[in-house]
């Protein structure tokens, strides 16, 4: 009989040497608590049963001497961005820009073998990271910089634990493009685990424009944790595009800790076949006058599952908050499901809040309009799905990245769409 995932994780961990004290502590915690099941967690689709399909929890050898070269998996560099590369969670200096270029751009880089401190979402996945992650990459930005961070998963079954700690000094501005790609391309078992952790800390008046594009292969299980804390007048503009992986589970916990801190959160998920894309984001306005705007667009085709749970809890300390949540889902298949849950918990009278969630199918009137112009039904449907995603894709202000994101989305929607449809 096959062991359950927690037992296999512990067995494989025990075989690794040496062990850091923090990693041992995490292993003991996992042994005591086990992995949560669907009764312990609120995930609509992406419960941790998917870990049963993972054979190897040990990190891959990418980025190490004698490892398979990852350069061919790298995409074209983005213009005007300094590139950093993580391979299977390890920093690859040979594929990254020279340290001097980073310094000149006002960015400090540090590598730490001690996986970063757990954020507010500490849970089973943080335990995994602390047990297996080879290192934490810390970026400290004190000026105005543009970075492209490529997280490459090499092919095979070995896992990856990209772990990132991003700190913005007061008044700093950073444009960070984070791309996740590579990994097992076939949706067959056993799958490949990529467990990513990101911590963002924005000091007063700092601005982070953070794009995240997840294009892993169809054999990848992507478990992603993101924690952010914003000081006064800080702005986080986060745009997340998810089109890859067999199962993608994204957790975000964002604390608006300083007065007038702003979060502009956009996310898009396109899933087909049997893909699962599940997002859970929680925002805590903890100071006066904060702004939260959240927009989610999800399309589930075939038998795919897409979910987004957006929680926001505001008490007296968060008085004067302005909140907008807008979640929309599109079901394009008889076996497809979309589940959207906007949740506002308000314990103050001083707030402007609106939220809405709609899920439906393609608008038949729009479809007929396109058919009446001679477009074939497949093209017409693809165009309408494309249009549905437009307001998230339109938020990408880096032209080269927008083209990449559009191509990724188009590839996921259908092959019939030529470039140039977007307005």
């Amino acid at each position, binding site marked *: 009989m096959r062991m359950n995932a927690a037992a296999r994780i512990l067995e494989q961990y025990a075989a690794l040497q040496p062990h850091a004290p923090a990693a041992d502590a995490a292993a003991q915690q996992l042994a005591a608590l086990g992995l949560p099941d669907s009764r312990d967690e609120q995930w609509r689709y992406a419960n941790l049963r998917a870990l049963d399909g993972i054979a190897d929890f040990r990190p891959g050898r990418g980025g190490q001497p004698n490892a398979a070269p990852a350069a061919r998996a790298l995409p074209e560099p983005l213009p005007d961005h300094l590139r950093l590369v993580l391979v299977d969670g390890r920093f690859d200096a040979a594929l990254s820009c020279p340290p001097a270029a980073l310094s000149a751009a006002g960015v400090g880089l540090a590598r730490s073998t001690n996986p970063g401190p757990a954020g507010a979402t500490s849970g089973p996945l943080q335990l995994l990271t602390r047990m297996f992650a080879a290192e934490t990459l810390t970026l400290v930005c004190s000026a105005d910089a543009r970075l492209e961070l490529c997280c490459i998963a090499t092919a095979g079954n070995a896992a990856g634990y990209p772990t990132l700690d991003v700190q913005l000094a007061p008044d700093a501005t950073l444009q960070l493009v984070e791309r996740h790609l590579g990994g097992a391309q076939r949706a067959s078992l056993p799958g490949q685990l990529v467990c990513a952790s990101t911590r963002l800390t924005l000091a007063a008046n700092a601005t982070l424009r953070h794009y995240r594009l997840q294009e892993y292969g169809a054999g990848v299980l992507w478990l992603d944790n993101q924690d952010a804390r914003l000081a006064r007048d800080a702005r986080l503009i986060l745009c997340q595009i998810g089109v890859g992986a067999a199962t993608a589970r994204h957790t975000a916990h964002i604390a608006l800790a300083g007065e007038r801190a702003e979060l502009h959160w956009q996310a898009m998920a396109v899933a087909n076949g049997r893909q699962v894309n599940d997002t859970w984001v929680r925002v805590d306005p903890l100071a006066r006058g904060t702004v939260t705007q959240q927009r989610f667009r999800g399309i589930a085709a075939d038998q795919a599952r897409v979910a987004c749970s957006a929680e926001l809890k505001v008490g007296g300390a968060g008085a004067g908050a302005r909140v907008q949540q807008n979640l929309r889902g599109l079901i394009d298949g008889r076996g497809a499901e979309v589940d959207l849950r906007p949740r506002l918990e308000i314990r103050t009278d001083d707030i402007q809040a609106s939220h809405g969630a709609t899920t439906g199918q393609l608008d*038949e009137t729009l479809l007929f309009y396109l*058919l009446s112009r*001679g477009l074939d039904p497949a093209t017409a449907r693809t165009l309408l799905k494309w*249009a549905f995603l437009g*307001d998230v894709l339109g938020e990408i202000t880096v032209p080269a990245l927008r083209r990449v994101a559009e191509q990724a989305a188009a590839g996921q929607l259908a092959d019939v769409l030529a470039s*140039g449809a*977007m307005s």
Partner: protein
Amino acid sequence: MSLLEISDLHASVAGQPVLRGITLAVEAGEVHAIMGPNGSGKSTLAHVLAGRPGYEVTAGQVRFDGQPLLSLAPEERARAGLFLGFQYPVEIPGVNNAYLLRAALNAQRRQRGLPEIDAFDFLKLVKQRMQTMQIDESFLSRGVNEGFSGGEKKRNEILQMLVLEPKLALLDETDSGLDIDALKVVARGVNTLRSPERAIVLVTHYQRLLDHIVPDRVHVLARGRILRSGDRELALELERRGYDWILEQAAA
């Protein structure tokens, strides 16, 4: 052989009979106007001919350019040369006008066995037509009808028609919501399409459109049937007398 031949057409919407026996022939080169009171079935006729789902043909036949029309899917009707100008053109943010125009044009060209239009030739064609319709070039990169005024949407419908050059254009209340200047622009666009090979069917409430697009035939459609047909004089008489006298004569 007429370009469009409608024989005893009956159709229902949501189970309710709307068209109760329409018979009409439109020759190539002609402009027909279909007028009638609200709820008479004018728009239903246009949408039935374009193949809109939910509009169920319960009896009758339609031939277009010598071929049975009703068995064709909406996109096949469009590629065969039938164009429906919508009364309420829809907005499709995120899909730009240039893409839609080119995709639609190429769909028709493929149907005719022609290669896809070259990008340069396409732009040249569209800009020429846009000039006719007094539409700014910036419109090409905007979403289809996104944020357009009512008049701009109607002009865009006619622009699409001019680019696609259909054999038969069904224009459903293209004049509604237009001021007099916009009406003249739209009428100029429609008149540009007039030729011995093409036909136009205008669905309208108002005679004023017919001051600018002079019809060869005028039909009064009421209670799901064509109750009277005539020439341009009939439209002028309707303007003076309304529809009651025709309804009374039909009831007698």
